[in-house]
């Protein structure tokens, strides 16, 4: 009986401590997470950007997926135009899904 009480006395504060330690974890904020406005990067003057500046590097890192997607999209667009020009677009291009 005493062991049970002792276990309970240790378990409750332990649980409270674990809950409080998680109170400010990164994941807690993910629910209300705002997405980076990477479109704003295109309006910035790239000639004035120092690519070794940690701020620029951090922004690139944040917007990596958008930029990669953008370049892939641009490449496929260019490829599509090329195919259209040669009259073979229908052979290679898939219909865009809705």
């Amino acid at each position, binding site marked *: 009986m005493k062991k049970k009480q002792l276990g309970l006395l240790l378990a409750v504060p332990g649980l409270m401590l674990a809950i*409080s*330690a998680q*109170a*400010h974890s*990164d994941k807690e*904020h*993910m629910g209300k*997470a*705002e*997405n*980076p*406005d*990477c*479109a*704003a*990067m295109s*309006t*910035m003057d790239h000639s004035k950007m120092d690519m070794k500046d*940690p*701020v620029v*590097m*951090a*922004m690139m*890192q*944040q*917007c*990596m*997926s*958008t930029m990669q*997607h953008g370049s892939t999209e641009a490449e496929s667009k260019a490829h599509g135009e090329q195919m259209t020009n040669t009259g073979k677009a229908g052979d290679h291009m898939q219909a*865009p*899904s809705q």
Partner: protein
Amino acid sequence: MIAIKKGSCFKRLLVMAGAAVIGGVAFLYSGLYSMGADDPHYDVTTWALETLRESSIVRASQDIEVPSDLSSAERLLKGGADYNDMCAGCHLKPGKSQSDFTLGLYPSPPNLAVISRLDENETSIDQRNFWIIKHGIKASGMPAWAPGHDDTRIWNMVSFLKRLPDLTPAQYQILTARGKSDVVHH
């Protein structure tokens, strides 16, 4: 004769000190001092409290070791997201000049998006910022973030503070957003 004079002088000083202590305690219990945050201190009180605060922080933070990678992009990103969640409400962000907290808190929290302490030693600024974030400041509204936040996380915020005054609102938004970048899939 001189010994008698010295004795009476000492007694007078003792009586005056006793009266000052009793007067001080009576003032504390009288409730006459205004504790409202909208009623500023006298200049001399502000001076005394600020001097006490600054001297204490300098002394307590002088031996803190500053990490060498404080300006890394990774630290900026991690610290930026935490700053936005935990600090921007009081210490503001680029493009914002006031909030309910800056208007109502006393002393008013400093606007860290515009403050740039170029005239001071960079290491001491980093040590100071780390200490304040970790331990907080008594009776100022600044909490100690040490419970629930390890040193690495606090250093990340210090890293972000170093660059915060240089950021535009657009750069701030990108650096502090926790979500993934918007990618429209077709």
